[in-house]
């Protein structure tokens, strides 16, 4: 059900006031230099961060503007997301059709969902070496398990009446999967997408920070370069870029998906 307009405006005002308060607090700490000589390094002023933000995009670092770093990161991310999401749908779908596949895949999901991608990094580097494919591998790892867990849980939660109604009108195995299981699990799938996206984004930045591939420099590598060169304002400006991209995906892609599916169908508030 749609929230009343008044309530939505109120929530928006609360958020804006909160952000302004936080920024004011930051500026106060930065200007007052309350942390002594290192204060400017820890808390650059908002003006410095804003200037660095613009500089990142206009001049960048080592001849590469921020757009190149963003482009590289997003390309690797999209590749990993696409592979991870596709695999999770195929494998979870097969799990519904075959009980044997379900037993094995459920075990795999339970085991690998607990393994942080960064912990796998040494093993992956030994096997594949340092190249962009390793980052894609880590993104796939970040996506496939939470996504699969949500899809499997969604399939298990499909009300028996939908399955029987589907069987009654002639749906079987694959057609039942596509015609009933998938649409009935959309709320779980959307929730899985949110978790998968967040994990993938974090995994990507972590991997790039730990071993940025110079041939394909990404945002994580940029932050690390700024840290190494003590360019803290640029570092914070890059964090803002990461947050902006995250919000764009959340409000520009994930929220519309939710709005046009489960909320439109009355399956979620």
């Amino acid at each position, binding site marked *: 059900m749609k929230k009343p307009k008044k309530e939505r405006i109120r929530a928006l005002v609360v958020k804006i006031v909160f952000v302004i308060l936080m920024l004011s607090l930051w500026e106060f700490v930065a200007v007052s230099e309350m942390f002594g000589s290192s204060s400017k390094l820890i808390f650059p002023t908002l003006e410095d961060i804003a200037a660095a933000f613009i500089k990142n995009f206009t001049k960048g670092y080592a001849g590469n503007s921020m757009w190149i770093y963003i482009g590289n990161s997003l390309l690797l991310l999209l590749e990993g997301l696409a592979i991870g999401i596709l695999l999770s749908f195929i494998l979870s779908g097969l799990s519904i059709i075959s009980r044997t596949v379900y037993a094995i895949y459920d075990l795999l999901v339970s085991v690998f969902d607990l393994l942080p991608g960064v912990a796998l990094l040494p093993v992956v580097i030994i096997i594949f070496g340092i190249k962009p494919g390793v980052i894609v591998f880590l993104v796939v790892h970040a996506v496939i398990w939470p996504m699969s867990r949500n899809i499997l849980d969604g399939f298990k939660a499909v*009300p028996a*009446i*939908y399955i*029987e*109604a589907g*069987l*009654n*009108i*002639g*749906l079987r195995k694959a*057609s039942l999967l596509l*015609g*009933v299981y998938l*649409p*009935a699990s*959309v709320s779980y799938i959307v929730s899985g997408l949110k978790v998968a996206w967040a994990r993938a984004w974090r995994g990507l930045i972590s991997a790039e920070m730990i071993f940025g591939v110079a041939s394909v420099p990404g945002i994580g590598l940029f932050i690390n370069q700024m840290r190494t060169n003590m360019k803290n304002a640029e570092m914070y400006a890059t964090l803002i870029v990461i947050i902006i991209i995250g919000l764009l995906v959340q409000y520009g892609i994930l929220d519309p998906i939710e709005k046009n*599916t489960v909320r*439109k*169908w*009355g*399956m979620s508030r």
Partner: protein
Amino acid sequence: MSTVLKIQDLTKIYTDQAVKQTVLENVNLEIDEREFLCVLGPSGCGKTTLLRCIAGFEEYSGKILVDGEERKTPGTDRIMVFQDFNQLFPWKTVEKNIQYPFVIKGIRNKAELHEISSEALKKVKLEKYAKYYPFQLSGGMKQRVAIAKALALKPKIILMDEPFAALDAMTRRDLQNELLKIADEESSTFIFITHNIQEAIILGKRIIVLTKGGEAVCDKRNTMERPVTPASEGYGALWQELRDALYIHP
């Protein structure tokens, strides 16, 4: 009239429970074409299980024949209307819910699909709600759509498992009247499960009372002139007979 449904030695034992439970034991039943059969019986006597076996949702021993051919799995010749209001797919509009079985069958022509759903919705007086999603409808309207969906498929048999049980008295009465009209016009056979003796007398041309194990302890033809009301001649006697059958064989 020819026999459309023949049930031979039907036995259903639930084995997935701690104790094996025999719900139906050697049930034999024949139902004629275009018959409106109402099934009465106490809770746990196997009414719903019988319907689910006919629909193909349960495994069983014995035989279920539709037009002489054995049926073991669900099919569009036997469409079930469930008691649960939430039997429509929430992700499809009312008209898409009705059209979907035809899309599965390979019909892609939009005009043809529209005609099918419009005609079905007209029968249940819900033409104006074609573009609505199920969550925007009341319980009674959802059941009407479920009936329209079943009618659109023109099945041999429509199986109805207490479809009006959770409705208020007025809506229930309206739907009973609509169903009577529809049943007269359609060529399908109806098997209607109910706990309500009055509902069975109003709707059923034949009424059976089941007892434990699915044994039919009463099998009556209802020849009363329609519409049947409590004031109809013979109503009281039939009501008493069915009540006695229900309570003597609990």
